[in-house]
């Protein structure tokens, strides 16, 4: 029980850090990779919360399909965000 809470806390903290970097990263390709890292830790958290059905759909979509679609879009625009 305590181990579950601990792993949950670690994975969500990792997700928070990855989200923070993804938002403030100027290079969009790196931002997509950090976003995928955030998704991996969310998948772990969902598994710990006993939702294997969601994990099965969350992993391929957020780690495979969504970064690929965003990378295709980034290739059609510019790689580095200019503010």
């Amino acid at each position, binding site marked *: *029980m305590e181990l*579950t*809470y601990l792993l*949950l*806390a670690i994975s*969500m*903290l990792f997700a*928070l850090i990855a989200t*923070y970097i993804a938002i*403030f990263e100027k290079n969009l390709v790196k931002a997509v990779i950090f976003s995928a890292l955030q998704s991996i830790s969310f998948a772990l958290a969902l598994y710990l*919360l*006993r939702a*294997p*059905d969601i*994990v*099965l*759909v969350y992993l*391929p*979509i957020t780690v*495979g*399909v969504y970064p*690929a*679609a965003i990378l*295709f879009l980034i290739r*059609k625009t510019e790689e580095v965000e200019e503010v």
Partner: protein
Amino acid sequence: MRKDLVVAICLAIVIVIISYIVTLGGGLGPLFSDVRPLATVYLGTTFNTSNPIFTAMSPEAVTAIVWDYRGLDTLFETAVFYLAIIGSVAIYRGINEKLRISMGFGLSKIVKVVTKLLIPMNIAVATSIALHGHLTPGGGFQAGAAMAVIPMLLVVVFSRYFLLDIRLSKDLALTLRSIGLLGLALTLFTPVVIGLINGLNAYIMQNQAKINAPVSLPAFVGGSLISGSLIMYNVSEFLAVSFGFAILFILLSIEEGLVKDQMRGEGVEH
């Protein structure tokens, strides 16, 4: 830099407070210890042979809820996904994706060999998620999403011309996707047709017999559990979702120059 630090610390404090309230503070009730009353209702009826009026004949409660208890919800979700794919097909209308304007070489040989080894495993996993969707966690959409990774890998690793070489064109993907949707529609109306033939009352999307509608789709075939309509819905949704994503990746990977040339009306000769 200092501003970033302040933002990060504020975020961390908010997260700690929220997670304390949700878990140890008991804001959502005990998270892992007991089964809530709503869950008890579903767990008591999803696979219960002693109560044939209320059961869905599937030990997987999530699939039972998705395709039996709340089947119309899932049907309209599928319709939303269908419209999204149709929208992207409409944007690319009149673009011939079979023209070649460059040589596609893809990534290095190491990546290609690893991908070749991965793809049969991926197909096996996706198919088993679809066919076991009524027994273990999984189902049609999950399997379709797992399968959708394959066209994406093929496009990235082998270039989009590889898809053309194995004849997986947009039209073929659209056809297979339509077969999936047709399977959904046929399963939807099967109980009504059986009811009409036998002169019995039946509902659309009915799986097992209800009090005033005694039509029941077979839960066991040859001694193995197939949960009536659930396996049909899972397999059809698997086809529809996996080839829906395949269409998206085929369209997204068309070179921008090719699209622009064709929109200007200049044929690219090759």
